[in-house]
């Protein structure tokens, strides 16, 4: 009986040891790579922020008026604009957008952060041709199929859901700006 037990127990113990050692190795690697990964992610965020607010050289994350957002500063520590981050559900999960506005509320840039849409269709919302359309606009943006006016954006054929989610996030950001502006005037 004990021979049988041995045959059963021994392999399982070996397996558990292998699992344990593997998990340890992974934990070790995780420790090693935690910082570089965090740095890489921070760098990506910085690039995204820079694209949203090209005139700023420094970025400060603040929480004011019950909102968390980013203040963009130039070398003289003057505020050149703000960045607001909002998301809405697209197709492949949330679409998170960084909206950059200057101190007058005019859009300086938009950058998508999380984008998992359909390649070739919905993913086009991440491309420069689409993102440029937002620059220079202010006030709530609406979607049209052609001949965009002052505060309208022409959509992308076949990508309505992705585009709408993107625009909603942008509009949320614009609302955030209005909050700040209102509070600053007081």
């Amino acid at each position, binding site marked *: 009986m004990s021979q049988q037990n041995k045959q059963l127990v021994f392999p399982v113990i070996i397996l558990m040891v292998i699992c344990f050692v593997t998990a340890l190795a992974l934990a070790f690697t995780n420790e090693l790579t935690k910082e570089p990964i965090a740095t890489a992610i921070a760098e990506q965020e910085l690039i995204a922020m820079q694209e949203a607010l090209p005139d700023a050289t420094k970025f400060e994350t603040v929480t004011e008026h019950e909102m968390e957002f980013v203040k963009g500063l130039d070398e003289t520590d003057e505020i050149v604009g703000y960045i607001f981050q909002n998301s809405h559900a697209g197709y492949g999960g949330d679409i998170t957008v960084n909206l950059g506005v200057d101190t007058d509320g005019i859009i300086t840039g938009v950058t998508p952060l999380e984008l998992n849409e359909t390649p070739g269709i919905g993913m086009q919302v991440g491309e420069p041709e689409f993102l440029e359309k937002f620059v220079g606009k202010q006030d709530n943006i609406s979607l049209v199929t052609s001949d965009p006016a002052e505060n309208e954006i022409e959509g992308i054929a*076949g990508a309505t859901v992705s585009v709408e989610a993107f625009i909603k996030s942008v509009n949320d950001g614009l609302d955030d700006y209005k909050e700040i502006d209102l509070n600053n005037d007081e």
Partner: protein
Amino acid sequence: MKEILSILFIAILVENYVFIKFLGICPFLGVSQKVDTAVGMSAAVIFVMVLATIVTWPINHFILEKLRMQYLQTLVFILIIAALVQIVETFMKKHMVSLYQALGIYLPLITTNCIVLGVVVLNVQRNYGFFTSIINSLGGGIGFLLAMFMFSGLRSKIDEADIPEFFEGLPITLLAAGLTALSFQGFVGVAENLFK
């Protein structure tokens, strides 16, 4: 409701796991000759995909992510899937003999298959909630079924056709799969507008 339908539609057609995502190719190429085995295999795949999602999602959400041990995801997921299938197979053999005879033999093939691990990883990557993950996995499995079913019909036609010798077997199968994939590509534009 609309959201559920749209996720299903995308998982089954627009981002079909076989023809667009290239998951589950091995069983697809290997077991799609006869309609019976094709359907049996697909049923087993759907079953494992959904079951794996049900089990891995809570473990990921409540343990791995809470403890910030995401680096263990790959390891934990595949081990859970392997163990799960083993348990299910043993259980089926003893207590659900008829079901075992229909599905059971396919189960070992699915364990180490990219389609199961793939859908689990995908759900995590897209931050889907519990219910959404299950719908997505179900859709992926149904898409696999669709692919298998269509293809088993196609393959019997291929068998009857006159093919240059060095294309016989795998090459012509792959080419046929390619043409089928092309037709699925057409769904990509439909989805985004259908479920506004």
